[in-house]
């Protein structure tokens, strides 16, 4: 009696083993954080970071820290220029053509208009309220300025510096993002909701309830997949279908006030198609990685300090993250530059 398995049986076993290996490999791959810290640069003691943007041509990265805006070389992460501004920078936004940047000066009730080539102060737009966040929508040519303390949203015409419209939103306003086709989303922490603003009219178009976690603060929007990732201060990331305002998934996530950033990299060498990053004040960086439009996995990274603003350099596939002291008295911070684990090491990497 031949006890050896037949060729067919052996083939089936081999295929099954291969499938199991593939599944295990995908699971291991999925669970891993997609990036590692490849470089860290101190940002001094001049204040906490408030805003980080990458120039559209990928040459420079701008960081607002204290009452200064500093330009870094995107390759070496060394400072190349800086400019003092008449207020503490709360946030930065950069024009699509890379010619200008805007700085929300929280304690000066103003928005500073900066020329970037070279770095200089061009104008100062005074406001009645204290700006806390900026969002530049290239489709409307407007700069949206959020004033969390005043529960206000103002729309500036970037060509004239005039306010086109204002909107009052109820509650404690947190991060805002826009989809580029008429929708601006504002997290409202104390109402457990995300307000949806119609950018064509600057009117409240509706509200998404966030029902599965408390205190939505950080937002990351995938405008292609039409997914809004909402990080809550209680912990957890709700994934909302922005077409229906429906929370269809809630993933675990670290607690703490968060700032989010969605990075889409469909052809990237990083092995991922899209990731929603959330940096929390508690010193964590969470990544919700898109496996498919309905399947996500998350992973986390412990930061040396509290997470601050983030920006992604699509040319080098690197995430820039400003960290800040969680101790209010000590304003030391650093810029972390994260890249794919598989990429070649960057010169001067600190472990």
């Amino acid at each position, binding site marked *: 009696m031949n006890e050896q398995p037949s060729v067919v049986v052996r083939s089936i076993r081999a295929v099954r083993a291969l499938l199991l290996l593939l599944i295990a490999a995908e699971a291991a791959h999925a669970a891993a954080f997609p990036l590692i810290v490849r470089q860290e640069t101190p940002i001094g003691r001049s204040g906490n970071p408030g805003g980080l943007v990458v120039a559209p041509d990928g040459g420079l990265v701008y960081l607002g820290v204290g009452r200064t805006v500093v330009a870094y070389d995107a390759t070496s992460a060394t400072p190349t220029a800086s400019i003092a501004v008449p207020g503490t920078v709360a946030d930065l936004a950069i024009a699509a053509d890379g010619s200008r940047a805007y700085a929300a000066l929280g304690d000066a009730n103003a928005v500073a208009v900066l020329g970037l080539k070279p770095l200089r102060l061009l104008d100062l737009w005074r406001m009645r309220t204290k700006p806390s966040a900026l969002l530049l929508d290239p489709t409307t040519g407007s700069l949206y300025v959020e004033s969390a303390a005043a529960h206000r949203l103002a729309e500036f015409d970037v060509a004239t510096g005039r306010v086109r419209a204002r909107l009052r939103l109820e509650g404690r306003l947190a991060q805002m993002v826009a989809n580029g086709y008429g*929708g601006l989303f504002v997290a409202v922490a104390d109402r*457990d909701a995300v307000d*949806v603003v*119609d950018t064509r009219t600057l009117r409240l*178009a*509706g*509200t*998404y*309830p966030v*029902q*599965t976690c*408390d205190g939505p603060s950080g937002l990351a929007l995938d405008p292609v997949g039409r997914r809004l990732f909402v990080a809550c201060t*209680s912990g957890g990331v709700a994934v909302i*279908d*922005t*077409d*229906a*305002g*429906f*929370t*269809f998934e809630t993933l675990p996530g670290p607690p703490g006030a968060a700032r989010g950033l969605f990075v889409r990299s469909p052809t990237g060498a990083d092995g991922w198609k899209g990731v929603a990053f959330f940096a929390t004040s508690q010193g964590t960086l969470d990544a919700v990685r898109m496996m498919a439009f*309905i399947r996500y996995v998350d992973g986390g990274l412990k930061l040396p300090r509290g997470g601050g603003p983030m920006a992604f350099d699509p040319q080098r596939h690197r995430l820039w993250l400003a960290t800040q002291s969680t101790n209010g008295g000590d304003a030391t911070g650093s810029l972390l530059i994260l890249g794919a684990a598989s990429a070649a090491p960057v010169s001067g990497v600190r472990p």
Partner: protein
Amino acid sequence: MSLARRLMPLCVVALLTPYSAAHAAHARSALPPWSALAGRRVAFVSGADAAVPNDDALVRAHLRALGLRVDRVTDAAPSSAAAGASLIVISSTADSNRLGGKYAHMAVPVFTWNTADYPNLGLTGPRLHHDFDVMEPIQHFAESFSMLYGYGANTTSALSRAAGLKPQLFGTLYLEPATVGWGRPGPGGRVIVDFNGSVGKAGVFTYERGAMLANGRSAPGRRVGFYLSDANFHLLTAVHGPAARDPQLRDWYLGLRLFDASLRWALATPPAPPRYDPAALDARLAAIARGRKLLFVERIDASEGREADRQIVAHLRGLGFDVVVADQMEPESRAAGMDLMIISSTCSKYKLANKYVDVKVPLIALEGLMSDTLHLAGRKRFVDYGEHGEEKESEDPPTRYVDIVDPASPMAAGLAIGPVAFTRGPGVLKWARPTPDAIVVATLPGSPTQAAIFGYPAGATMADGFVAPARRALLPLDNPTYRDMTVEGKALFDAVVLWAIGGERR
């Protein structure tokens, strides 16, 4: 923040979202508001060792957010653990073998998404894949996607109106493959939502208290079967933000609204079943008939059935109806100004053509073979409609009985569930398979899908998508003399006439 508080806005939105003023007004009048149900106790039956993740905790929180008191009962607990509850909710996490029908006899309403337990409760037959099934995305990947689309099969029941169901597709669960259950309810069941264009695959179905279950027994209390499974309550569709302003999208994302309406219907007190009292029924009909105009369409001087027509007309006139007799060949304009019309089985279906289909006058057909022309049923003869006892047209023997399957309906005349002698001797009885929007009162013996007496409310979706312009009913009075009918048969006749003219609302 508690889960209950978190879910409250969802409930409020689900309850307050307008779908149509007319529907909303009707829904309010038909089902009690949540405020009237607050504080009711719900026994939530779930698995003692249920697999995780599951949505049981979310469902319980949702029920609490609606104002209900929720007690958890494990599937291992005796049925007495649910004593005193206003509603028993059975999750699919409960082991159907442990449940074993222990709640089948309870008069308390049952709302269940434990598909495997449907046969234990008598909600469906026992055959997996035929009477009930659970479609899960690993084994049935493509079909589980098709289950994301439900169809509003019934739009006129109180539950359907409260949910805002329309005769169209809608999103049952959020757009990802999920495990979904369906059942094929028995003769007294009402299909509210179906899948894949098949009324035999009911996603949501109900039994009124007293209605005939799939096992032939009477439902001791209201029963609802729902398409959920262990871990997809959170995927029941709802819409928020700008999209919620679009009525089309509100009508699409109505899974949660349907769930809530089903709960509300189950918790509502069923109407008191009518009492069988032929004399009182006659008196009631007489009180309403006085001065009402009734058009009786017949084949004047028919060779067969002429006597029956005369007796029916005499009976109607005796009740006080102002009866106008019209020949089958007269134009349908004869129906103008009428309060009710009856088409006799002496009429030729062929000669009558498509007359009276559109008239906005309640209509009773005594000829089941006209089911297709009148859109009472589909167009497949012997499949969608047919007859028992006709020598050349039926394999079924002549009969004198009908099976009452929904004794709670006013059309049932207060007769109890089960067989009722309709005529004194066996003869021809017609049947049809109406759409789920019909109220089926009686079926033919041994043929639970062949409805003998049924009615469509105005606005109901009839066969071929035709919308009932006014009430429509079938009463299978095929040429026997009126005097051949039993007392019970005549009571059914009067009850159908009373229902058709809207008498139960007065």
